């Protein structure tokens, strides 16, 4: 066991970690931040996406020790300072972008990463960017709509399906 320290959602945190401890395990079991979901554990579904030094990564496919010292942001860090939902989260609620909610943390983190680089994406760009995020419930349509709305674009023309 090695003590691994990193900054998570702006706070310096540490927890014991084996070499094989994944970032997803470090967050969920070490820090009890269970908002990050593990859907597949085989690098396919994107439910576990968090940001490491500003970049979206699949936390089930990164070793905690490999990102020691990094700035990590998880879904727990996406709400506003007063506890209200952040813009992307609120858009998911407003546009019915989730059903069971299992994929949602990864969807929101991936969307945040997209909007940082591309503040006004086209619908096609949103769909491309979500390539690695799988949702079993929604059919994606309302997720795409929510992300378009979060980017400040008019989504009234995107019909509900």
């Amino acid at each position: 066991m090695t003590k691994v320290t990193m900054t998570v959602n702006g706070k310096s945190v540490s927890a014991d970690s084996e070499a094989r401890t994944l970032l997803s395990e470090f967050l969920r079991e070490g820090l009890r931040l269970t908002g990050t979901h593990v859907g597949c554990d085989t690098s396919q579904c994107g439910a576990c996406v968090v940001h490491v030094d500003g970049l979206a990564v699949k936390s089930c496919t990164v070793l905690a020790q490999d990102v020691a010292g990094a700035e990590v942001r998880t879904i727990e860090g996406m709400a506003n300072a007063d506890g209200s939902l952040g813009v992307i989260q609120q858009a998911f609620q407003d546009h019915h972008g989730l059903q069971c909610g299992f994929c949602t943390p990864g969807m929101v983190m991936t969307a945040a990463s997209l909007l940082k680089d591309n503040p006004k994406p086209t619908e096609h760009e949103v769909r491309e960017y979500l390539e690695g995020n799988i949702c079993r419930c929604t059919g994606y349509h309302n997720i795409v709509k929510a992300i378009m709305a979060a980017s400040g674009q008019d989504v009234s023309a995107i019909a509900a399906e």
Partner: protein
Amino acid sequence: MYNFEFTKPTTIADAVAALKADEAQALGGGQTLLPTMKQRLAAPSSLVSLTAIPEMQGVCMSDANEVCVGGATPHASVAIHAATMFPALAALANRIGDPAVRNRGTVGGSLANNDPSACYPAAALGTGATIKTNTREIAADDYFQGMFTTALEDGEIITEVRFPVPEKANYQKFVQPASRFALVGVFVAKYADGARVAVTGASSDGVFRWAEAEAALSADFSAGALAGLAVPGGDMISDLHGSGEYRAHLVKVMTGRAVTAAA
């Protein structure tokens, strides 16, 4: 996954020394190796992370008109930084997997793994790239030795890859949507002294050069020049995603599209 020792050196020399340990293995972005270790198909006793070595990071242009990519440079960084130097290479990097995979996966890891459906092997073979390791320089034509097999020795690390910039080039990937790898991918490049065509995803020998297409395109770099060619022979991969005949057919179609799109 079984436990292991973990080290994260900051120089190539220290990484090479750490890899001398019994059953030590290099860790690039981990996008292939970690899933493999979870399945216990690999169980190294120590992992040496290559991601904190500044000498192995970044994209630049050499005096010999080659794009030089550090061995541990992630795909996303190549997509951004090679965009003006070598647009076809940047576009290839930008279509690997998904954004999260591209933020971690590295060019060295992709070439060391030599998955028969991976994208970078097509770029390396299709440009006649030079694969630079801690001990030598290997020409792409000598490097790929069948699926998951390369000229690398145990403990040898890819420190840099140099891609000669062509006059025109394009990569066409027919995506296998479940894995996001190439069902068939073709990299076409036109140089002053002739054309090169490298095919991934199709052959059970891994990436290969389609010699007949290269000859035809060297004489006339147009999709029409391919019309009379038979689809490539050889041992095509045949699985639930597509038969060997289907893949061979796709090779010809994707080569034509790549030539038309080459800019």
